[in-house]
């Protein structure tokens, strides 16, 4: 039987130890450690991907809801400039609802409250709410946004 053991040189000694059956247990432990490390790494990557996907979806929902809110706000300003009395408008979009309610506070000022929600009824759905102050010009009949709260 050929032996790998030799007394010449450090590397040869390491090689001899590595090839030794006595160290099979150590090799097994190292391999197992590598395997677990790789499993943990993969789990972390997959978890990262899932949270990244969720973050992207949430971000897209927020953008979508923002556009819904802007749409009803624009409609509210438009209606206010045409008829200066309190009112509301509700819109159903493909993936959510938006509503605006406005009150005329004085001869030249009105307040619009806008709320929009994506995927209505789903917990954790993106929401947008804003309160907008509008200046009404009695002479030109126009309405313009002066402040967003």
């Amino acid at each position, binding site marked *: *039987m050929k*032996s*790998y*053991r030799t007394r010449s040189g450090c590397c040869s000694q390491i090689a*001899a130890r590595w*090839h*030794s*059956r*006595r160290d*099979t247990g150590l*090799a097994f432990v190292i*391999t197992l450690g*590598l*395997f677990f490390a*790789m*499993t943990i*790494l*993969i789990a972390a*990557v*997959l978890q990262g*991907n899932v949270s*990244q*996907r*969720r973050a*992207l*979806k949430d971000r*897209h929902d927020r*953008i*979508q809801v923002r*556009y*819904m809110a*802007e*749409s*009803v706000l*624009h*409609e509210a300003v*438009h209606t206010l*400039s*045409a008829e200066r009395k309190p009112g509301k408008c509700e*819109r159903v*979009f*493909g*993936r959510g609802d938006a509503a605006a309610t406005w009150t005329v506070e004085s001869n030249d000022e009105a307040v619009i409250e806008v709320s929009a929600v994506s995927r209505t009824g789903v917990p954790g759905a993106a929401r947008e709410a804003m309160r907008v102050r509008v200046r009404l*010009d009695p002479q*030109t*009949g*126009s*309405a*313009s946004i002066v402040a967003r709260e």
Partner: protein
Amino acid sequence: MIRRRRDRAGRGFTLIELLISIGIINIILVMGGLCFAEIVRMRGARDRYYERLAAAQHVLHLVERDVKGAGEIADGDESRLILRRETSEVVYLAKDGEVRRIEKAADKTRDEIVAAVPRLRVRFDLEGQSPPDARTVATTIEWEENPQIGISRPTLSLRVALRERGQPQ
């Protein structure tokens, strides 16, 4: 007895042990490779999503600005929108993921592609009455997305009304 133990100690790995080790290392390498490929794929899908989102937002921004600044919606259908201003006319044409904005004034015409994204669908809906009495435009942009990013069909929609006469821009 001692000699036999020494012989066994110096015998090294058997073929089976070597094959198992190589197999485990291969599994680890393949898993690592898949992991790396997944990271690269996800990053690519995310970058493409951001590009499409930016294009869609750009188109919505331009349409919003032009509708607010227009005096009349001259004509329009699902893929076409014509806005008339005091001294010029703005035409939007949407087809095959390409959105063109043509601004025609008395002295010059400006034709530009404002978005060119494959599978981007832009739709214009004139609400209420038909042109030239229509006052509101709903612009809807949707596109096919890689399911890997979790949003299969992203949609952005914005309704904009013409400003009333005398209303500041």
